[in-house]
């Protein structure tokens, strides 16, 4: 067996690839993140807002982009493609080709002058061709890496960029290079491509200017997009008044060989309709044409309801057959059938909700990696191994395995990271280099000696702001003992020079006046630290992004502003104090609450990573909900997998299983928890570094439709048991969907019941084809590849009948004979059936124990009673409280494969903590002056992280900051009536000095 290698290659730098890379890198593995395009970010970077919270997509993604770009354990390989793969799990040889950028990445600092001066225009593909860019460009302003690239197709070779580039980064003779790397495992996250709407020629895309795709519409809605965030008609730039969204374009369409559902389009369609209404100044009518609204995710139905009730969006259940254009007005006529009546309706603009298709390179990837694709060319995975490809050591996440939304992609990405690291767990930490720093100099007794470094940024700053004047000004400010100008302060050689100047002039504070701290502060802090100063003795003045670039035509005023900004920052710097990053020890052990498929999987993953685990299950058996699942829609044998999982858990020496037990108490914080486990044999105290909540959920016990009062009325779970035992016989069956879900009390969808109903209906048809099966539904939510089983059921004669809340089915029992009365919308008649069995698709209820667990762990629940994660989009398995994670049905209803993904994800997230001996926390945290504290508790209640506890010392109660929990927002300090709390690096004194100095000239001391 070849030696294992502690590094991983991640293919694809969208949100899934980024998440997988960060988890791996934070757990001690070297990551090579390869992307075919010139920057990472993928489709999420193009989006305006995200459902169901309407968060700004770039706001939440950008910090992850920056973290990935500057992570010491992640190497970005952009503009590259895979060529060859050799070897086996644990030791692969990957060969890739990096295409020439014609720009030296080491030298380019992203100033963008080249792009401004380039004489050639090309269509901006990031803006979906709705605007132009130069032949030398970055994909988007926040691109990581911020390195320009020449579009060789468009470039005419005039040489202008080379002439204007002060960093000498242009490299016209740069060649493609081929490189081979050794890695232990591989994660594929190449994402998806939007369906090409031209294929559906009847919808007029490409012919009629006012028919746009949903991805184009995202750019249109984006404040940084072509239209500045205003919805406009491409034909004439007018604000539309009547907008139509057409769902399922390129999805659920067997005619064009796309028989799957793209799973995310209903939600993004609704989102785009809501945002469009918010983004136009006039009343905008939005109509969404759909087949079924598939709002099957967490809290999605609540969003759908708001779209109808609050925003007045009209939903029409119909497939639009054809679109024509009025050539005079460029308005569009939509032909569709509503309630069996052919209808034509005119709209100003139409958005096609295009589906997801596998990336163009899917077949090539499959060949290189030797992995199996499914019939639709997505990567083949299995119900019980949802992140594994058919080749050991090669894992998959994101939309490449099946169409999915962002949180599912993120969870699957973390899950794939867990699997990728477990096969090389023994090599953790071996491919990464720990950095050594010189000891920190004690500056507490020194007077401030400030050095100011002012950046020309090529001519980005100096073209507007008079840099020599600014340097001269800065050097004359009190406490400033050194000042100089640099062509690029961020360049490698300048870093060395700054260190020299710190020594030479015995500087104890450093200021860089250049671009934005958001991208460059970390770099300069590092430099300062390398020279033996505390990294917090550094400040930046933003004289480019917030000065020279925005006052291009006012050089005099811009220069004055730059001076004010520097004077303000100097005033702050004088007061800066070194900050300590608190270091806490980590107990490398996990506690998993719940022994179902999620809990067992999470425990096993942690154990495979080399960590001890306490697995606590309330009942006498491991297996949870999975014990009741007899077969799956996809045809796998759940019992076989369950038995194997239980055996693996029980036989694993690192997993301590507590059956018939309960976690009674959890104390402490990330890295250092102490908990009590109660069981019949008594109470046991365990120490652990993380907690994973996998407490699952329960089938709702219906009170509707005579359940419990008539013997023929059963739930899907009960039906499944009967079918499995061969005890089921019926001539006629009626299934009723959404029992206890999507109601006023429980507005959200239970996600799994449509799949369950289809599964059981098919099973009935298999054993007894003559049995009539009716499914009464609100929307059939067979998302993703489950769609094909819906088709199969329909083709086997299962009859699906739509109902809505105004006309719910009625079930009665007449002398033991069941009767179901319902409205048939196609023939427009009431129908009464007399089935032998009525099957209720009962919702999923949260575990009744959830409330207790949430209070014990101080983590929140949703209104529905499921656990609420840290962020619905990007942190699906984290809690806001560090060190506490969740997975499976405790989070929300989900299928087995989804629970397994989340369980692996929770393990990966946990291992970013457990893999470290100590955790270094952020230095910018709150600090309480106990002498001033009056113990009023205002801060305790305000803190969103519960990072403040009240301590009783002798006679006085005072607030105390739990360093491990504080995130440094400073809200507590602002509210403190006695000014006892201050936030490091943003102290009240520092900010007041900054305010004053920004406004008033100082007198030199």
């Amino acid at each position, binding site marked *: 067996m070849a030696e294992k290698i502690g590094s991983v290659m991640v293919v694809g730098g969208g949100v899934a690839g980024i998440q997988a890379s960060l988890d791996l890198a934070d757990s001690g593995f070297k990551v090579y993140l390869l992307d075919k395009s010139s920057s990472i970010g993928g489709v999420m970077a193009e989006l*305006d807002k995200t459902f169901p*919270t309407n*968060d*700004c*997509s*770039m*706001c939440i993604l*950008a*910090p992850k982009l920056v973290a990935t770009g500057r992570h010491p354990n992640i190497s970005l390989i952009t503009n590259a493609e895979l060529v060859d793969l050799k070897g086996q799990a644990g030791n692969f040889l990957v060969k890739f080709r990096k295409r020439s950028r014609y720009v030296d990445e080491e030298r380019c600092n992203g100033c*963008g002058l080249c792009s401004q001066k380039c004489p050639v225009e090309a269509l901006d593909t990031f803006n979906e061709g709705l605007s132009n860019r130069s032949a030398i460009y970055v994909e988007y*302003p*926040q691109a990581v890496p911020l390195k320009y690239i020449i579009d060789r197709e468009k470039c005419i070779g005039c040489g202008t960029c080379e002439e204007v580039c002060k960093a000498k980064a242009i490299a016209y003779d740069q060649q493609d290079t081929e490189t081979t790397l050794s890695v232990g495992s591989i994660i594929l996250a190449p994402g998806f491509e939007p369906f090409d709407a031209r294929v559906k020629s009847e919808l007029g895309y490409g012919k009629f200017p006012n028919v746009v795709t949903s991805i184009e519409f995202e750019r249109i809605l*984006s*404040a*940084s997009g072509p239209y*500045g*965030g205003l919805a406009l008609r491409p034909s004439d730039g007018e604000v539309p008044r009547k907008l139509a969204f057409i769902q399922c374009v390129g999805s659920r369409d067997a005619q064009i060989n796309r028989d799957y559902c793209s799973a995310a389009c209903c939600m993004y369609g609704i989102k785009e309709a809501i945002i469009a209404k918010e983004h136009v100044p006039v009343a905008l009518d939005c109509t969404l044409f759909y087949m079924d609204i598939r709002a099957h995710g967490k809290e999605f139905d609540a969003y759908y309801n708001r779209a109808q009730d609050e925003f007045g969006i009209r939903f029409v259940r119909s497939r639009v057959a054809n679109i024509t254009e009025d050539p005079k007005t460029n308005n569009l006529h939509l032909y569709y059938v509503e309630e069996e009546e052919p209808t034509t309706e005119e709209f100003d603009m139409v958005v096609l909700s295009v589906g997801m298709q596998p990336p163009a390179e899917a077949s090539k990837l499959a060949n290189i990696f030797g992995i199996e694709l499914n019939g639709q060319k997505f990567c083949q995975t299995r119900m019980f191994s949802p992140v594994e490809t058919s080749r050991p050591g090669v894992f998959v996440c994101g939309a490449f395995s099946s169409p999915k939304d962002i949180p599912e992609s993120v969870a699957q990405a973390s899950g794939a990271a867990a699997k990728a690291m477990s096969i090389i767990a023994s090599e953790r930490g071996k491919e990464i280099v720990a950095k050594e720093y010189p000891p920190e100099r004690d500056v507490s007794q020194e007077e401030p000696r400030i050095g100011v470094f002012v950046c020309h940024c090529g001519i980005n700053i100096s073209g507007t702001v008079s840099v020599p004047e600014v340097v001269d000004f800065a050097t004359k400010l009190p406490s400033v003992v050194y000042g100089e100008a640099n062509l690029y302060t961020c360049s490698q050689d300048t870093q060395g020079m700054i260190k020299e100047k710190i020594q030479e002039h015995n500087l104890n504070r450093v200021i860089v006046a250049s671009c*934005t*701290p*958001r991208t460059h502060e970390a770099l300069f802090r590092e430099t300062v630290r390398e020279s033996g100063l505390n990294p917090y003795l550094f400040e930046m003045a*933003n004289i*480019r*992004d*917030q*000065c020279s*670039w*925005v*006052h*291009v*035509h*006012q050089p005099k*005023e*811009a220069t004055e*502003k730059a001076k*004010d*900004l520097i004077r*303000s920052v100097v005033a702050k710097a004088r007061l800066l104090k070194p900050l300590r990053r608190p270091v806490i020890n980590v107990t490398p052990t996990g506690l998993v609450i719940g022994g179902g498929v999620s809990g067992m999987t999470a425990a096993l993953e942690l154990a495979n990573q080399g960590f001890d685990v306490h697995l606590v299950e309330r009942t006498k058996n491991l297996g949870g909900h999975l014990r009741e699942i007899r077969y799956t829609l996809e045809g796998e044998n759940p019992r076989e997998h369950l038995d194997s999982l239980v055996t693996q858990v029980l036989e694993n020496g690192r997993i301590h299983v507590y059956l018939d037990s309960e976690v009674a108490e959890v104390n402490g914080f990330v890295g250092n928890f102490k908990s009590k486990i109660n069981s019949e044999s008594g109470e046991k105290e365990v120490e652990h570094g993380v907690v994973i909540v996998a407490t699952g959920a329960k089938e709702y016990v219906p009170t509707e439709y005579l359940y419990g009062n008539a013997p023929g009325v059963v739930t899907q779970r009960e039906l499944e048991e009967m079918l499995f035992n061969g005890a089921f016989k019926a001539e006629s069956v009626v299934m009723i969907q959404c029992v206890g879900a999507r109601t006023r009390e429980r507005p959200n969808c239970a996600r799994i019941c449509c799949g369950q109903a289809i599964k059981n209906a098919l099973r009935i048809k298999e054993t007894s084809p003559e049995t009539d099966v009716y499914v009464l539904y609100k929307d059939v939510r067979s998302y993703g590849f489950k769609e094909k089983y819906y088709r199969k059921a329909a083709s086997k004669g299962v009859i699906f009948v739509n109902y809505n809340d105004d006309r719910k089915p009625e079930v009665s029992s007449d002398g033991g004979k069941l009767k179901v009365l319902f409205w048939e919308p196609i023939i427009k008649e009431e129908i009464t059936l007399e089935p032998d069995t009525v099957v209720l698709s009962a919702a999923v209820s949260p575990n009744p124990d959830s409330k207790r667990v949430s209070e014990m762990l101080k983590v929140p629940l949703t209104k529905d009673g499921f656990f609420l994660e840290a962020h619905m989009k990007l942190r699906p398995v984290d809690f*806001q409280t560090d060190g506490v994670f969740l997975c499976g049905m405790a989070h929300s209803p989900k299928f087995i494969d989804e629970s397994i993904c989340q369980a692996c994800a929770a393990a990966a997230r946990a291992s970013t903590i457990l893999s470290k001996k100590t955790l270094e926390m952020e230095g*910018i945290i709150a600090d309480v002056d106990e002498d001033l504290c009056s113990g009023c508790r205002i801060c305790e209640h*305000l803190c*969103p*992280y519960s990072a403040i506890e009240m301590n009783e010392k002798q006679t006085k109660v005072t607030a105390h900051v739990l360093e491990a929990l504080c*995130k440094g*927002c*400073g*809200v507590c*300090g*602002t*509210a403190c009536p006695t000014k006892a709390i201050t*936030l490091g690096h*943003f102290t*009240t004194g520092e*900010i*007041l000095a*900054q*305010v*004053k100095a*920004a*406004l*008033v000239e100082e007198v030199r001391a």
Partner: protein
Amino acid sequence: MSEESDFEPKIIGFLCNWCSYAGADLAGVSRIQYPPNIRIIRVMCSGRVDPAFILEAFKNGADGVLVAGCHLPSDCHYISGNFKASRRIALLQRLLQDLGIEPQRLRLEWVSASEGDKFATIVREMVEQLKKLGPNPLTKDGGEI
């Protein structure tokens, strides 16, 4: 009037690190031009903006103060700091009136990381409005504070 048209108001802007400061950066990256009257001070969260900071600005002659944070309800990096800011600013505006400072001189805005244009527009509007209002009443008469 001629004096007023020459008047260039001084504005202090407190911008939260995660959304609004990023939005102001994006205005720069997109080269959206706005008047050079604002001096930006970065804070981690709009909830960190102490009324004392704002009063200090007015005391030292600022003609306007902008506080900008992440959009309500859920964009705040620190869960709910923006809510706290909104309550605090509303209270402070009342207090300013008592001090003889027009409450319009203090503005609270939500600016996301992709709203460079919005940030520039806000600054433009503020400058225009402050020019109409004239100098900070605390400095108007004596010029001294």
